[in-house]
């Protein structure tokens, strides 16, 4: 079973040299720490920045320089600032190669729910609806089951949707799965020490297990 850092580490392997990547709030933000040495990757922040640098040293925080999670950050050599319309312009125009974000639920047809629990929580969708509607390549980083032990990989989402038919890959504490174009969660890798049976028990949507499933190397 993976912890949050483990999920981030595994997702980092999906990043290719030269990619422009948008990292959502939460686990996706951690992915930045595991980009392989020597690989040149530019991180996009949808408030209007390409080239997110590390968090600042204490005392060097700049209130004018934040990421989409409102955290203080730094810039890098080659960073570029722009307004939020251009930021979503480049997202819609598919210039961003990979989007990694969290979710409350994912359905076997690639639908995603992440922004609202009716009557309970209404934080808003922020940039998530724009990202999932536009990105060619979306990876969801999430827990396989919620705190009540219920699967978050469903036949159909129960919460209000963020986007439809868009999620391509999911990395959880238990597994790596592809969402097939025709529907269904295709199991690709098991987390260390996790059995296919455990994954099956934690997946409410249609799980497709084809042959031997390797344990992931993190």
């Amino acid at each position, binding site marked *: 079973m993976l912890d949050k850092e483990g999920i981030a580490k595994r997702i980092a392997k999906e990043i290719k040299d030269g990619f422009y990547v948008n990292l959502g709030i939460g686990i996706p933000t951690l992915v930045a720490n595991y980009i392989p040495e020597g690989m040149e990757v530019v991180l996009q922040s949808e*408030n209007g920045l390409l080239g997110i640098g590390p968090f600042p040293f204490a005392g060097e*925080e700049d209130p004018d320089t934040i990421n989409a999670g409102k955290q203080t950050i730094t810039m890098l050599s080659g960073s570029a600032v722009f*307004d939020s*319309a251009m930021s979503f312009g480049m997202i819609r125009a598919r210039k961003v190669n990979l989007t990694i974000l969290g979710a409350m639920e994912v359905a076997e047809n690639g639908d995603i729910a992440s922004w609202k629990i009716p009557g309970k929580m*209404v934080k808003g*969708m922020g940039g998530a609806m*724009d990202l999932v509607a536009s990105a060619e390549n979306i990876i969801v980083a999430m827990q396989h089951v919620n705190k009540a032990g219920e699967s978050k990989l469903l036949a159909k989402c129960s919460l209000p949707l963020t986007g*439809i038919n868009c999620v391509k890959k999911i990395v959880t504490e238990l597994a790596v799965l592809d969402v097939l174009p025709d529907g269904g969660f295709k199991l690709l890798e098991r987390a260390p020490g996790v059995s296919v049976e455990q994954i099956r028990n934690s997946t409410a949507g249609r799980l497709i297990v084809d042959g031997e499933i390797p344990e992931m190397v993190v």
Partner: protein
Amino acid sequence: MNKVVSNADEAIKDIEDGMTLMLGGFGLCGLPEKCIAALVRKNVKGLTCISNNAGVDDFGIGLMLKKRQVKKMISSYVGENAEFERQLLSGELEVELIPQGTLATRCMAAGYGMPAIFTPAGIGTEVAEGKEIRNFNGKDYLMELAFEADFAIVKAWKGDTMGNLVYRSTARNFNPLMAMAGKITIAEVEELVEPGELDPDHIHTPGIYVHRIFKGFDYEKRIEQRTVR
């Protein structure tokens, strides 16, 4: 062509109950904090506020929410604000949540004289309800209308007396978009300079879009999520 007013109170003096305002900033970054303070002092009521976020409990638009000055918020993300959530769940506050890119682009559309734009954001979700859907090249898009706002209130780093503005770092965010979109645009700046002191190639908002400008003193620039290595 001198657009300088003496302070925030003078800049907002004709903002009246029931008007629609755009307020720049992302979270607390790049927030027109002097004008917000003046709006709280003036206690103008029944406002519709278009702003990406709603501030925190004791800063930004949160201060206006606390005084019940806001009738309706149009935003993309409104977490981090307990009073907001209370007013929303109790039905005291009307809230329209829209995708962040849609919000940004509807501002730009107003400033560019484009009555509507097309975006795929929200297709298949409750955001699409009641809106026209149109297919281009096999992909569905929502038609979203340009915003209309009586006033746009933005914060820039530097500005000149002709209204030309320069923003600093990610405090740019929605500010240049909203600056273009108001019927009347008010800019508050950290440094007010004479024409000619800003490089024409580096101006983010040309003065034609700005009607009033003033220098704000002692910016607090509060940090929402102080994060260090």
